[in-house]
């Protein structure tokens, strides 16, 4: 090699590279990592300091104690969790059979499915709400004499707004689709299903005893992502005038800044815990297979 390129080697400084480069790379890498660590950790530490900093006592955890007794806390959290449960069930019941069908018997539908499940990523949530609220206004405007009007009122029941479940399912579709697609790609669905069918298993049996147990990690990650999404969803709920957890945090922020930051940290830890469980479950699955 060196014999082939004798004229080039000296002036490029190839001998200098082995001695000079590693240290330069290491310094550069250290700076990047330190800056990143400062940028990502400081807001978290600072918001914790903000919540425990008491002008009189110097240190107090009162803000955290107040969370649970704050007005509307339990109600809004319960609403969020209820919405999350309904959304997870609906989105899985809708998506899983469709994705199995696409893999097993209707591969031509695959592009259609892909487009359907990517659309919510392209369309910003706020434009989606603009459309929904226009539709909801049709209720009183045009449909007040028809039986459909009752449906319009029922889906907007503030105790459990079904319209939010519908919106959240649409918003969750891309994430659920990707999680389930990865899960289905990791197992040999066709062989499993055909083997089970040849052994005389019914379709429900195939679903619950063959497909779902094999798809556990995919289903778990889809559910966790949906849960995180619904718990953090603010745009749709706020603009349609409902008050789940994320909207409640903003509502109380005017009255008590320390409390709202404490609730933010609390909800963050909750979400992070879920996502960490999800990511460790994912890696364990990968190393196991």
């Amino acid at each position, binding site marked *: 090699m060196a014999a082939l390129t004798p004229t080039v080697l000296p002036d490029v400084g190839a001998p200098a590279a082995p001695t000079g480069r590693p240290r330069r790379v290491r310094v550069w890498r250290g700076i990047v990592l330190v800056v990143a660590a400062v940028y990502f950790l400081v*807001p978290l530490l600072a918001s914790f300091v903000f919540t425990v900093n008491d002008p009189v006592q110097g240190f107090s955890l009162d803000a955290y104690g107040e969370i649970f007794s704050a007005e509307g806390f339990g109600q809004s959290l319960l609403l969020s969790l209820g919405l999350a449960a309904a959304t997870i069930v609906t989105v899985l019941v809708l998506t899983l059979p469709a994705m199995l069908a696409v893999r097993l018997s209707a591969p031509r539908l695959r592009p259609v499915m892909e487009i359907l499940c990517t659309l919510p990523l392209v369309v910003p949530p706020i434009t989606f709400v603009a459309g929904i609220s*226009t*539709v909801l206004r049709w209720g009183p405007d045009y449909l007040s004499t028809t039986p459909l009007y009752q449906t319009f009122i029922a889906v907007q029941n503030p105790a459990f707004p079904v319209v939010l479940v519908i919106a959240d399912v649409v918003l969750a579709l891309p994430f659920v689709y990707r999680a389930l697609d990865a899960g289905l790609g990791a197992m040999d669905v066709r062989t499993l299903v055909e083997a089970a069918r040849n052994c005389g298993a019914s379709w429900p049996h195939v679903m619950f005893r063959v497909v779902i147990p094999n798809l556990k990690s995919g289903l778990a990650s889809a559910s966790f992502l949906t849960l995180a999404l619904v718990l953090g969803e603010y745009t749709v709920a706020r*603009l349609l005038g409902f008050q789940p957890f994320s909207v409640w945090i903003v509502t109380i922020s005017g009255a008590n*800044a320390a409390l709202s930051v404490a609730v*933010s940290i609390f909800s963050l830890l909750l979400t992070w815990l879920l996502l*960490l469980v999800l990511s460790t479950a994912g890696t364990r699955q990968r190393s196991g297979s």
Partner: protein
Amino acid sequence: MAETLTTAPAGLPAEEPPKTGGSRHRAKGWTAALPLMLFVGLAFGIPAIALLGGAFTSDGSLSTANLTESLQGAYLTALLGSVKLSALVAVAGAVLGTFLAQAVVTSRFRALREAVLTASGVLANFGGVPLAFAWIATLGNSGVLTSRLNLGDHGWSLYSFWGLALVYLYFSVPLMVLVVVPALDGLRPQWREAAQNNGASAWQFWRYVGIPVLTPSLLGGVVLLFGGAFAAYATAAAMVGTVVPLVTLQIADALTGNVLIGHENVALALSFDMIVVAGLVMAVYLPLQRRSARWLR
């Protein structure tokens, strides 16, 4: 000869049964996918039609008056503000994210890599209201750092264009790390060695090998970050209110009735503008993703 010819048509009907069986099978596939399609058609289609209809109607007749209005004055400022902010966040986030990813990928410590990737997965999903409050507590007017370092005296304000960009980077950089790490892993060490053996400097390696291979993933990442920042509403609403003109804030304002009577449909026209911008950006992304997938096998 004649015999083989006659058997051929005879062979055709023999192929028929599996064919019909296949189509019956396909019919079954359709039915299982039907509920999802119906649901998306209704839950997504009806609002979309309502939006389009509203955006192009004014006083009950078809017109482009709303669209024209949505591209004028304060609305145009907001739309441009959103595009500017998203572009800044996308480019800065992509550059910083790539540097961070490269630092992690070339590191010898496996634990560091795992930690950064896990943290990125978590932080990339960290948007919305809690993010805004964490930053308000840190660098807001009475934030911890603002009061300790007297940043207020130096003209610092979190509730500004640059403050918003700083906050948006908090979820954009981790997203970029997630996007670009597989691509950086795909840069084979052999390519670098080959370049070095041919006498290329580090700069030449990146200029002629590294960057061209990474370009699709990098641009794809820029597009994703742009989309995320462009659509973000909760963080901006909780942080700046209406101090910084953003199209999402304008739409929310118009939707909640903060608009002249007879101009309610401007919100829909603005939404339409947003979808057009987001759609254009995504149209760039999809082919890029396909191209970058080629290198990651």
